[in-house]
């Protein structure tokens, strides 16, 4: 990557959802879905956010687009703070920022033919003159690997993979700079998923797109990303470029996550770090390091002190992890407690 230009910069983003309750429906607590995260996406790269359900990855994507108004923080796109914009200005801004969802069928109106679905996006942004639209729609369909004549078909006439292509065509129709892919290939079968992943890569090359890729699938993430953000319970626990992160993970959670994924190779040596219990509730997240309740390395310090993202000598290329004991774990002076027996049978943790 030459001359890195900041495209999207997220600073101190918080997204708290109120919980109503009690006699008069007062706000009794908050779900701290995203709790103070910061990161930067540079032009032309693919940054992925990974994590398990409830980690806040999708919420982050929605907050950036202000599909839910963020509670706090700055989201700058090309230097402009999106959270400061009026609704009208934001709508105009969405021309540059598009999103593709997991379920293409749910996000496409089933009563509209494909050309109408795509035209609607262009109409809202007034991106293409009316007379040129038909041609543009046909070009787009071909770009995403569909046929011209399919413009007049209804969504139910397409398979899941094809519908995702329609979703991509719709996003592309307004010439966006950044596309947020929220679990965009998760619902697809592997053979189709591979087609769509290749398509996304080709489009990125062709149109110089930037992707913010949200996924729980680390295989997909490794394949498509330049840099990766690992989230746990609303916090970033590790961030780094693909190679450092996958080959040299530093946060115990990242290590556990990677070791938990089954490898399609029967000779693969299993060196699994089994985590105890479930992810705690984001309503009352654990004090200190949020991962300490499941971490095999946790000490008393982890229960009280919140670790900041930091880098040590052995980490390169902007690789950072939020753990108090990166060096100690690396050198082996800090040993893991073995919870594997507990995690399988016996006393897992209270949920």
């Amino acid at each position: 990557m030459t001359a890195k230009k900041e495209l999207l910069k997220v600073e101190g983003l918080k997204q708290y959802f109120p919980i109503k309750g009690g006699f008069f429906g007062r706000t009794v607590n908050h779900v701290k879905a995203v709790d103070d995260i910061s990161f930067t996406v540079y032009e032309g790269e693919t940054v992925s956010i990974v994590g398990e359900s409830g980690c806040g990855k999708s919420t982050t994507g929605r907050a950036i687009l202000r599909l839910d108004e963020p509670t706090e923080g700055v989201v700058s796109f090309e230097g402009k703070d999106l959270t400061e914009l009026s609704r009208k200005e934001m709508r105009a801004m969405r021309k540059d920022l598009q999103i593709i969802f997991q379920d293409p069928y749910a996000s496409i109106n089933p009563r509209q033919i494909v050309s109408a679905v795509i035209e609607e996006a262009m109409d809202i942004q007034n991106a293409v003159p009316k007379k040129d639209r038909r041609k543009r729609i046909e070009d787009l369909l071909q770009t995403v690997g569909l046929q011209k004549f399919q413009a007049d078909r209804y969504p139910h006439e397409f398979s899941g993979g094809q519908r995702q292509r329609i979703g991509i065509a719709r996003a592309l129709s307004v010439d966006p700079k950044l596309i947020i892919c929220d679990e965009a290939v998760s619902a697809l079968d592997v053979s189709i998923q591979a087609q769509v992943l290749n398509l996304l890569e080709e489009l990125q090359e062709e149109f110089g797109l930037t992707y913010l890729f949200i996924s729980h699938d680390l295989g997909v993430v490794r394949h498509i990303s330049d840099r990766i953000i690992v989230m746990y319970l609303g916090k970033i626990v590790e961030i780094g470029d693909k190679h450092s992160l996958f080959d040299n993970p530093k946060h115990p959670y990242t290590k556990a996550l990677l070791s938990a994924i089954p490898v399609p190779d029967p000779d693969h040596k299993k060196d699994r770090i089994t985590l105890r219990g479930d992810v705690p509730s984001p309503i009352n997240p654990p004090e200190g390091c949020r991962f300490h309740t499941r971490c095999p390395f946790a000490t008393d310090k982890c229960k009280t002190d919140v670790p900041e993202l930091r880098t040590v000598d052995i980490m390169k290329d902007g690789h950072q992890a939020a753990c108090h004991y990166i060096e100690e774990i690396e050198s082996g002076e800090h040993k893991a407690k073995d919870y594997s027996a507990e995690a399988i049978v016996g006393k897992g943790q209270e949920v």
Partner: protein
Amino acid sequence: MNSSENILEIRELRTSFFTDEGEVKAVDGVSFELPRGKTIGIVGESGSGKSITALSILNLLAKPGEIKGGEIRFKGENILTYSEKQMREIRGNDISMIFQEPMTSLNPVYTVGQQIMESIRIHQGLNKREAKLKAIEMLKLVGIPSPEKRVDQYPFELSGGMRQRVMIAIALSCNPDMLIADEPTTALDVTIQAQILDLIRELQNKLNMSVMMITHDLGVVAETCDYVAVMYAGQVVEFSDVRTLFKNPRHPYTVGLLNSLPRHDIEQEKLKPINGTVPSPHNMPKGCRFAPRCPFATELCRESLPELVADENNNQIRCWIYSDEWDGDPEVNVHDSEERTAKG
């Protein structure tokens, strides 16, 4: 292999759905066997018929589904000839099943304990008190903390991982000889998936069970199975032991599947997807079902359906390339990706 070594043998199973648009042959001549105490993986993408095969074994098909033919031999007996009453005695007792969605697979209006006890009381004739003790014991066995408390809770009070443990407790409460697990971890996060797979494996050893693992995840197969049947469009296209399947896959579909898979453990160049999409069940190709997507397909492939043929190691393949009739390049190498076209 004779039947005493196999807990389950399926021969030419055919299951169809009768819809307004005509007959849909969801399972069309499926055969495989499961040696006692072993784990077989049934892999395939959506529409391959893998789940329908599993439901057919327990005859749990919902209308308009119907088993049209074939044999399902469980411990040597063809259970397709069994009456509904005989089948009920097998379900949950000799063969148990767990499902994909732990969130919806438990009845929301009954407690966890009631749901485990039901199975125990039906098949073991225990009284309420004994059944409850057994239910608590089962919860302990599947690693649920404070089982005495959990037994009286409702499913909505448990997380997805915990609910799947409860499902396993129900399934194993009557010491079944065989467990059918239909995508048991697909809806779960990976760290929880790891726990559940470990649990199934450990209990399998402890209780000496045979397991049929239905999944779309080749990683899960590699990790948990001894044998694999790859299904495509209602048929088994390849069957072999797990090592052979991953080290030397022979069917072009199996090869394509492995090449499509983005890996987290190794660096890959571009993925090599399979062209096109699964054929519509209303409009199956007349030859090999995979021919329209197969980069090696010839006239023969498009015209006639190959048989599932076993070699001396009982590795089975349904592909013309490995037959004497093959009319294409005799030197063809299914692993040679250059012959494949990249774009769908």
